[in-house]
């Protein structure tokens, strides 16, 4: 399995801006699909996933500022409090930027365990803010943390293949 090996050895071309922006927009689109009931609880947070991917794979291009902006868009889309997603994504991006060297040394299985921690903090912060503001918890919300983590490996493989395809095309 070539994909399970650490991703550092090969030199990769810089990612195009179009790719980054498109991936964030697609993530917003996936989040906005009409999920309901249990599916809504199980819905992975695609925006958080994509932001974490870029924060760890292109930390000089995508960082805390852009994640915060994506969080503001997510706040408007979800009609949550202004800054609620933004705060969670800021912490997520910080985790990604700080840990990006360590993550790149790991293979996908080890990465997944690390990523679970980052997502757990992100979800906990979001839930905590909600609990502070409105006074009750929805424990099923935290399920999304697990599904997001499970999507980390497929997403990494897919994005890597897409970047590879672009290099071969040129």
């Amino acid at each position, binding site marked *: 399995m070539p994909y399970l090996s650490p991703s550092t050895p090969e030199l990769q071309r810089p990612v195009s801006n179009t790719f980054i922006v498109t991936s964030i927009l697609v993530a917003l689109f996936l989040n906005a699909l009409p999920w309901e009931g249990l599916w809504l609880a199980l819905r992975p947070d695609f925006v958080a996933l994509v932001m974490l991917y870029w924060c760890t794979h292109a930390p000089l291009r995508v960082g805390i500022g852009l994640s915060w902006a994506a969080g503001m868009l997510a706040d408007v889309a979800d009609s949550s409090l202004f800054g609620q997603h*933004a*705060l969670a994504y800021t912490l997520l991006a910080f985790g990604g930027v700080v840990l990006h060297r360590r993550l790149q040394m790991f293979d996908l299985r080890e990465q997944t365990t690390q990523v679970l921690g980052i997502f757990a903090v992100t979800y906990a912060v979001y839930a905590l803010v909600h609990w502070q503001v409105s006074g009750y918890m929805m424990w099923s919300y935290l399920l999304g943390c697990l599904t997001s983590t499970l999507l980390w490996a497929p997403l990494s493989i897919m994005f890597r293949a897409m970047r590879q395809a672009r290099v071969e095309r040129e």
Partner: protein
Amino acid sequence: MANPQTFQFFNRGPSPAARLVFFVVLSLLLMFVDARYRYLESARNALSMLVAPIQQLATMPGKLLHQAGEFFVTQHGLVEENSKLLQQHGHDAAQLSLLQSMQQENQQLRNLLALPQRSEFSAQPVEILYAERDIFKRKLLVNKGEDAQVKIGRVVMDDMGIVGQVTRVYPRTSEITLITEKDHAVPVQIVRNGLRTIVFGAGDTSQLSLRYMPISSDIQNGDVLVTSGIDGVYPPGIPVAKVVKIERDAAYPFARISCLPLAGVDRNRQLLILSDLPPLPAKPPEELSPGAGMDAKTGGDD
């Protein structure tokens, strides 16, 4: 760089920690302002113009599926549905004629008693775009907004009963908070005996609860609650909920009463937004207690 000690080859701007602190503080500030004062609605509207196309696009798969389903409806099904609707229509028409005669009678009685007439209100049909996008909230997004003169505070109902209230209006869409949202209150009356009370949303389930009802109060399973119209927000006489469970525990001063909403929010896509509700007569000015005349400037802070 003037100081060789801090010379940097690659200037990458502020460190991640500094950025983290900056954006965390910014987010906390925004949350505080938004939760406390709601100053940011115009910024939200502006940003919603950016997100709206994505949201519109995201409702497309569902719509397409719906349309495809409609396309493949069999004639047998249509005939069956049509006969069912005709039956329902006959039934409703009989009820309606009864209602009309009752209304006339009611108006005459009100005339005799010199009470103000109950006036009509108009309703605007809207379609649900999303049901509860945030797992924490009981909210809906519908397809009419400022462009269709939807206003904050309007009452929303379907053919069965009250659904909720408009709580936020965007240029093309508006947000409806369901009556099952945590602590959302509706003043109601029990049809059977006219007992007035207030029904609250439970928040974590799709139920409602009647709080602060003494154990001895006359409530039975299956009682229907209708709006009492006392607050001036909800018009009187619209069905709201049905009592499903009563726990009378002598250890507590109040009975625990759960109700289920009558409106079928998850069953249909169309809702009605009520408008042109008759305004209540102005409240009489509150009597000032002696010596409170100096506080007139702090009195009207609602």
